[in-house]
């Protein structure tokens, strides 16, 4: 069967089709081409109907090995493209397995639509086989969700689901479709208007506050921008750069804001917060006006709230009004879409220089960078060195703009953010809010599905990788050329670091046994190598980057290495735990761990 040429236009004439066909027609009309999912009984009619769409090349279904990864892949796809990612699961365990992925997307404002099968509507509430109240379960962790018990509702629900996921502050939307609804026939049209009186995605009353914000910024002697994920979501890093250069304002980013301005830029101070550079945090505590752009003052960036930037006036540009005043009460709040508010701010900002302020930051940078950051050769294989090598070898080969990195959560994630030199917003895919171990590999796969021509690295720890490594099979099935770096230190490294620093080195539950990852990769037919010496790193990374297809490197790094600097939980951001001491060596300054 062939679909007529205008079949997937929004204005296509109404047609009588099954609920299953409605789901896929809606997806194709919304511009979806990839589905990440796992079939099962309650979603079977939808999968059956999918055959034609796959045969026609309209939709491609990626079979995952665990539904959590379907949500993470949809998330990785969405972060890498800005489009809505779609994942599919069956009822009961299939749906509950999605929950971690949904919560991850919710915390980081990632637009995904999750389609789940549900038991037939007459069986709802009977504890039927594979029945779970997934709408109830996911309510706290998604932007909105639906249970569809009538096929007549399905077209509008699909349209609303994509609309809600995409518009305003993005987020996950779940659509739970009863099996009988998938089978039933109904009229499908897609030209209706979405009318949601309770959904106001773009608050528009920011004009008055804008002048106040500009006045504060223009009068500042030591202004500082703290740029978050919202800059990337609104696609305004170019506007940010122009404002920054025009008024000479230094920029600290959040974890999800890395690359909002190129990290080689003289006004970039890198990431702030718990494992941010010391000078970035010191700048936060020294500025007179803090300009927060598209961020939510997460505890990982603020440290102890009652001592966070108390000397500064705070200007907060944010789309989500509920984030304004939630943690930090701003002096001026500009509540609106950064895609509108930041371009409107630009002409109001006066050209300016802040020589004295910048000089003081440079002094701070010089005194802290050498202490906390490694840029030199070492005798032992330590993770920071590995990170620097992966980045330099990769960007020697490819334009940095063509490289995407996904990480898991923990020490390697922080080292990635410290030692990779992010060039653009959205280059790093990482679970910032929920901190989901196991996210890295599937997110990298989702990003690679979106951009087959980009070089995608999954930087993972030996702990997190073992949570989702079953997806190596999916990598092979989909022939994805994802490069995997396992920072293998035999521990759940970040937890171990906390145990070392705050629990008298009682390493309870943190030593991790790993399989032989080279043999494991071989079992999946994936080329791999083991790296044990600093001298082997560059060659291994080159081999990965030049191999046509996936490649896995097991970096057997020194075990008890800590991420520095560190703001202890509950401490102020300038109360940093610094690298303990530095040893002078013939090869240069070598820090002691």
């Amino acid at each position, binding site marked *: 069967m062939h679909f007529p040429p205008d079949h997937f236009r929004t204005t296509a004439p109404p047609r009588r089709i099954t609920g299953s066909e409605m789901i896929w027609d809606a997806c194709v009309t919304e511009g979806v081409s990839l589905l990440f999912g796992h079939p099962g009984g309650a979603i079977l009619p939808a999968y059956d109907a999918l055959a034609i769409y796959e045969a026609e090349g309209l939709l491609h279904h990626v079979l995952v090995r665990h539904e959590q990864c379907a949500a993470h892949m949809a998330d990785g796809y969405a972060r890498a493209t800005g489009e809505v990612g779609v994942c599919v699961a069956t009822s009961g365990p299939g749906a509950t397995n999605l929950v971690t992925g949904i919560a991850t997307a919710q915390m980081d404002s990632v637009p995904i639509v999750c389609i789940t099968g549900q038991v037939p509507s007459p069986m709802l509430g009977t504890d039927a086989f594979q029945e779970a109240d997934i*709408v*109830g379960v996911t*309510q*706290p962790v998604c*932007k*909105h969700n639906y*249970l569809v018990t009538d096929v007549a509702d399905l077209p509008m629900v699909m349209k609303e689901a994509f609309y*809600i996921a995409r518009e305003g502050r993005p987020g996950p939307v779940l659509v739970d479709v009863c099996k009988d609804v998938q089978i039933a026939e109904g009229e499908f049209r897609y030209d209706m208007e979405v009318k*949601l*009186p*309770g*959904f*106001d995605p773009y608050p528009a009353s920011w004009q008055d506050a804008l002048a106040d914000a500009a006045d504060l910024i223009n009068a500042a002697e030591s202004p500082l921008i703290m740029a978050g994920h919202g800059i990337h979501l609104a696609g305004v890093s170019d506007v940010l750069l122009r404002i920054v250069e025009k008024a000479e304002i230094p920029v600290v980013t959040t974890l999800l804001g890395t690359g909002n301005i190129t990290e080689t830029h003289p006004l970039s101070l890198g990431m702030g917060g718990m494992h941010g550079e010391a000078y970035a945090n010191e700048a936060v505590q020294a500025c007179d006006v803090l300009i927060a752009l598209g961020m939510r003052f997460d505890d990982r960036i603020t440290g102890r709230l009652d001592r966070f930037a108390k000397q500064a006036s705070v200007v907060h540009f944010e789309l*989500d*009004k*509920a984030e*304004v*005043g*939630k943690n930090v*009460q701003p002096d001026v709040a500009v509540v609106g879409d950064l895609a509108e508010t930041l371009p409107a701010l630009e002409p109001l900002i006066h050209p300016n220089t802040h020589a004295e302020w910048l000089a003081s930051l440079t002094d701070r940078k010089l005194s802290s960078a050498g202490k906390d950051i490694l840029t030199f050769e070492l005798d032992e294989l330590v993770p920071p060195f590995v990170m620097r090598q992966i980045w330099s070898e990769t960007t020697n080969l490819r334009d940095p703009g063509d490289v995407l990195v996904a990480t898991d959560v923990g020490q390697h994630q922080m080292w990635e953010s410290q030692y990779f030199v992010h060039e653009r917003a959205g280059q790093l895919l990482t679970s910032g809010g929920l901190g989901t171990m196991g996210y890295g590999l599937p997110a990298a796969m989702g990003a690679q599905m979106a951009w087959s021509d980009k070089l995608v690295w999954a930087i993972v720890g030996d702990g997190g990788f073992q949570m989702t490594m079953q997806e190596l099979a999916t990598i092979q099935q989909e022939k994805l050329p994802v490069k995997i770096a396992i920072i293998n230190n035999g521990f759940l490294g970040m937890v171990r670091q906390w145990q070392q620093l705050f629990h008298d080195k009682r390493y309870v539950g943190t030593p991790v046994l790993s399989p032989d990852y080279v043999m494991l990769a071989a079992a999946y037919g994936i080329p791999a190598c083991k790296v044990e010496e600093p001298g082997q790193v560059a060659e291994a990374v080159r081999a990965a980057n030049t191999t046509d297809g996936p490649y896995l490197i097991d970096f057997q790094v020194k075990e008890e290495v800590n991420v520095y600097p560190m703001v202890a939980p509950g401490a102020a951001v300038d109360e940093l735990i610094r690298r303990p001491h530095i040893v002078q060596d013939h090869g240069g300054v070598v820090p002691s761990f």
Partner: protein
Amino acid sequence: MKHILAAWMRDRPGVLNRVTGLLSRRNFNIDSLQVSASEEPGISRMTFEVSGDDRTLEQVRSQLIKLVDVTRVESFAQEAIVKRELALVRVAVGPDERRQVLDLIQVFEATVEDISRTDMLIQIVGREEKIDSLIGLLRDYHLLEMVRTGPVAIVRSAMANVESEPALEPAGDTWQGGGV
């Protein structure tokens, strides 16, 4: 400090769950909650009391309005509203004490909804303090059973959107709480 809020929401399955779930997971302290129909078909109105400072109130408002099904949220200055609760109280009252209880009921403008040889079912409508007072007095007798709504509230007509001016006190509603 207690705040009275009203939220209007689309009458969809599970909407109450969405609102209460939000309030509990955001750690907001809700003292009471009432749901009813509103003047608009398909839109329910929820009245609830929240304890907390102005910042908490603002957070509750902004988080509630984010719910897709919630169409409007208002908070009311206490003096600008008419706020009422209803309680139904069953008291064990034999013929000997009946007269005393009826006197109380009269003072409180409560009504007797049912009466038997052994007990009496009393309905009282009014402000929270007035109901507290009557119930306190009825506890001198054997209070068998009680059910009580939380407050519902509505803005006085002359006071809509004018929170700064003093409330108009309609005649006959001069109850100030406390014992009689």
